[in-house]
Structures are given as structure tokens and as C-alpha cells.
């Protein structure tokens, strides 16, 4: 988000700007000036390095670099859905030219993560004024959690939901609550038939909460429209429970 929107006619932002084979200095200046205004897409030859919680590198090649006003950085290659290397919203982008190489750095401070892209050649530069529309999603796990939060008796009488999307070292727990007797309850939601991995996941969360809170009586409930026989066997083996729930329809 930049201030340009609030300055009226002072600097009119175009819907898009496209440059083919732009000079590296121009690209650097464009990135530094419009990084908070446009979604910028570069098709360029580059080498990419990431350092943070882990390390990664991409060998020299032609790929897409996308940066968004909120700081998101995505490096896309010619396969798969997910970006090969990326930095989340909140990161800051800096571009410079050093010895005829365009150096683009995306820096995240908390936790410290840096992506460095080095490129001798940019084929295409696009600055696009994208919007953020209203997004509606039906039938997701989040919908199910929300549904239970508002109607806790769907789980059982006396259930009190406490914490949604609880971030832990072993993952994000969908919902943690307390039952009528005061026992902690961990819930894992699946929007379609749950298999053995879901049972394992629930077991991991239950063990984690037991250990973290120092209590033995922690219940685990898998909430899904249906479960596979092997999931059922695992739930029984681990002393976990199952509650049938369909994702709510709008």
C-alpha cells in the first residue's frame, strides 16, 4: 500500500506498465519506487539464494519473480503449484545494480529470512495494479471450526472451545477446548474422509499438549464427515475419539 492513492492527481498510477528488455538500472529504480504500489512481475535470468530458518539455492536459469505491495516475494519455475522460493508478507524489497548485475533482496526481520536474487538480464517487467477482492470460501475446515465455535454442543454437552489455530512446535492445532469435567480437549478437523495421517496428527498434538501442560488427561477428537477403517483402528489404539461433522453449506 502506498501513499499515491491518497495524493489525488499528483502521480497518476497506471493500470499497468510493461517494458521489454529493460535496462537493469531502470528495473532497480522501478522496483524501489513501485514496490508498494504495483504487483510487479519480472521474467529474468537469475540465481536465487535463501537463508533463514533453513538454506536454499536455485541455479542460474530463466524464471518468474513476483513481488506484491505487502512485501510477498514469489519465485516461480515451470513446474508445480507452490513457488520454489518465497518470502511472506511483511518482508521488504531492495534492488540495486552491482557490476552489471541486478541484485534484489527481500528481507524479513522476524524471524530473519533473506532471499537474494542476482540477475544479469531481465526480459520482461510488468507493473500491474491488482486489487484484493472479497474472498468467500465454502465448506472448508475453517468453516467447520467456526461452526463448532458457535455451536459447541455439536461436539458434546458442556464442551467449551477456547483456542483456535493454536500455533505449537509440532504444528497448528485447529481447536483446543475444555470438556464438562475440566479436561483439555484437542480437536483436529478434516473436511473430507479422514485417513490414518489425520489420526497420527491428532495423536501428535495430544501428546504435545500433555507434555506442555504437564497433564495426563487430555482428550483428542477427530472431527470429519467420515473416517477410513485404518484411521478408526489408529484412533482406538491411541485412545482417541471421533465425531461426525459435515462442513457447513452456505
Amino acid at each position, binding site marked *: *500500500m*502506498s*501513499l*499515491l*492513492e*491518497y*495524493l*489525488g492527481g*499528483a*502521480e497518476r498510477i497506471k493500470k499497468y506498465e510493461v517494458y521489454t528488455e529493460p535496462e537493469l538500472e531502470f528495473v532497480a529504480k522501478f522496483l*524501489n*519506487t*513501485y*514496490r*508498494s*504500489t504495483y504487483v510487479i512481475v519480472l521474467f529474468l535470468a537469475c540465481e536465487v539464494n535463501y537463508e533463514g530458518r533453513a538454506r536454499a539455492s536455485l541455479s542460474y536459469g530463466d524464471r518468474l519473480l513476483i513481488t506484491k505491495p*505487502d*512485501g510477498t516475494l514469489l519465485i516461480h519455475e515451470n513446474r508445480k503449484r507452490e513457488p520454489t522460493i518465497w518470502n511472506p508478507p*511483511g*518482508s*521488504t524489497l531492495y534492488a540495486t545494480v552491482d557490476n552489471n548485475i541486478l541484485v534484489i533482496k527481500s528481507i*524479513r*526481520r*522476524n*524471524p530473519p529470512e533473506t532471499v537474494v536474487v542476482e540477475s544479469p538480464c531481465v526480459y520482461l517487467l510488468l507493473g500491474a495494479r491488482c486489487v*484484493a477482492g472479497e474472498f468467500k470460501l465454502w465448506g472448508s475446515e475453517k468453516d467447520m471450526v467456526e461452526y463448532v465455535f458457535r455451536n459447541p454442543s455439536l461436539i458434546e454437552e458442556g464442551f467449551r472451545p477456547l483456542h483456535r489455530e493454536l*500455533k505449537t512446535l509440532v504444528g497448528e492445532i485447529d481447536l483446543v477446548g475444555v470438556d464438562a469435567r475440566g479436561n483439555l480437549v484437542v480437536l483436529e478437523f478434516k473436511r473430507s474422509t479422514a485417513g490414518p495421517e489425520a489420526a497420527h496428527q491428532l495423536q501428535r498434538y495430544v501428546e504435545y499438549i500433555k507434555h506442555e501442560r504437564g497433564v495426563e488427561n487430555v482428550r483428542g477428537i477427530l472431527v470429519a464427515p467420515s473416517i477410513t477403517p485404518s484411521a478408526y483402528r489408529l484412533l482406538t489404539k491411541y485412545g482417541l475419539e471421533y465425531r461426525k461433522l459435515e462442513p457447513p453449506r452456505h
Partner: protein
Amino acid sequence: MSFRFVFSDAREWRYIIESIAALIEEATFVVTPEGVKLRALDPSRVAMVDLELPSTAFEEYSCEAETRVGVNFDDMKKILKRCKKDDKVEYEVAGGKLKIKIIGKATRSFVLPLIDIGAETLPTPRVAFTARVKLLSDAVEEAIRDAEVIADTVKLEASEEMFAIKAMSDKGDLEVQFGRESGSLIEYEVTEPAVASYSLEYMGDIVKKSAKIADLVTIEFATNKPVALTFEIPLGGRLVYYLAPRME
């Protein structure tokens, strides 16, 4: 001679320049018989600086006609680092050059080349603020420093009763509340509750440097709109920063 002015507190002047230099590399001072103005956007267009110093804010002031002085703030900052407590600073433009004199026990003169930065007249950002809070700038600085430990983004929230500065991440949550009874809240006016988030990198740069200039800061914002942080400079001057919001 196009203009000449003397600012009696060189250290205060240095803090003002350092504050602007944290965001801006180059900008143009517009010096008129009425006073000095400077308005500039940072390179990424996320923040804007607006400095206004009337002629009364200076110990000595003379200006014949409107003069535009483009300067590099990094260079100016380095020169002003030489200021000591009790020094005065004098600016004079004559013969196409800017002469800066630091006047103390000894007098040191520096000359800066003038830069021609395109004539960009920036308007005041058009925002209808619904919350206006005046606080001790130290208290705000402390809250921002605390937030920097946790996250990259800071949330400002103003309700009928209270103003809060919040931050959250995997590391934890921070909430600093300023209620009407708290000693750091000087003025409070909320016509409509407001919530907005801003980059801590920019907020930190702005607040940490500017808290040295003024004891009080006025924060104005509205939901998902830019924030205006106004620092008052003694004898009628003001330094205002506008910062674009971060959409969640």
C-alpha cells in the same frame, strides 16, 4: 544573497535533519519570506515528510524571494553530526551554493552543492481521520521498540475509551494500552473507532528519530487509512509524517 537563517539550537536542527534523512535521500527546501517548507515522498512512496518552520522559529531570518534548495540528506547529516550542545547553525544560499555554518566556540563552515531535483509539488494527503491522539513521544517510542522485538507490522487501535499499540507474531503478542487516565495520554478525540496496521520498519525510523525533537506527538488515523504523526518544533514549527497503511 537569496536567504540566510540562524537556528539557535543546532542539536535540535540536527535531529530534524536526521529524522528526515532516515526516510528521504534527496529533497527540496522551499524557502520564502514566510518560512521554510519541505515536502517529500520516500523512494517507495510509502511515507511522506512534511516540514514547516515559520520565520519566527529562527533566531535570525531573512529571505528576499522564494528559493528552492535541493539537497542530499546523507551529506547534510554528515555535516551536522559535527554539532555540539549550545551550538547554533546558520544556512545561507548565495551564488548558487549552500553554506552551512556551525557556530559555537569555533565556527566551522561547510559548502554543499545544490542539486536540481525535479519540481514536484506534493499535495497534502486526503484522509478523513476519525481518531486523534496526543501522547508523550517517549511512551510511543517505547511501545514501538517493544513491538519491533516481536513483529514486522504494528497495529494502532482507537476505541471510545482507549488507544492501543499492538503487535503479534509467532513469538508472542504485545499490547500497549493508553487509557484516558494514563499519564501519557494528553488529548484524545475519537469520532469513530479506528484500526489500522503499519510497517514497523517505517514507524520505527520515524518515531525513534523524531522523539528526540518533540516531547509530544499527535497521532491521527482512521480504519485502513494512512496515519499522520505530528511532532511540534519549538516556536511554531511542525514535522509531520504520513505513513501508508498495510492491508491485512
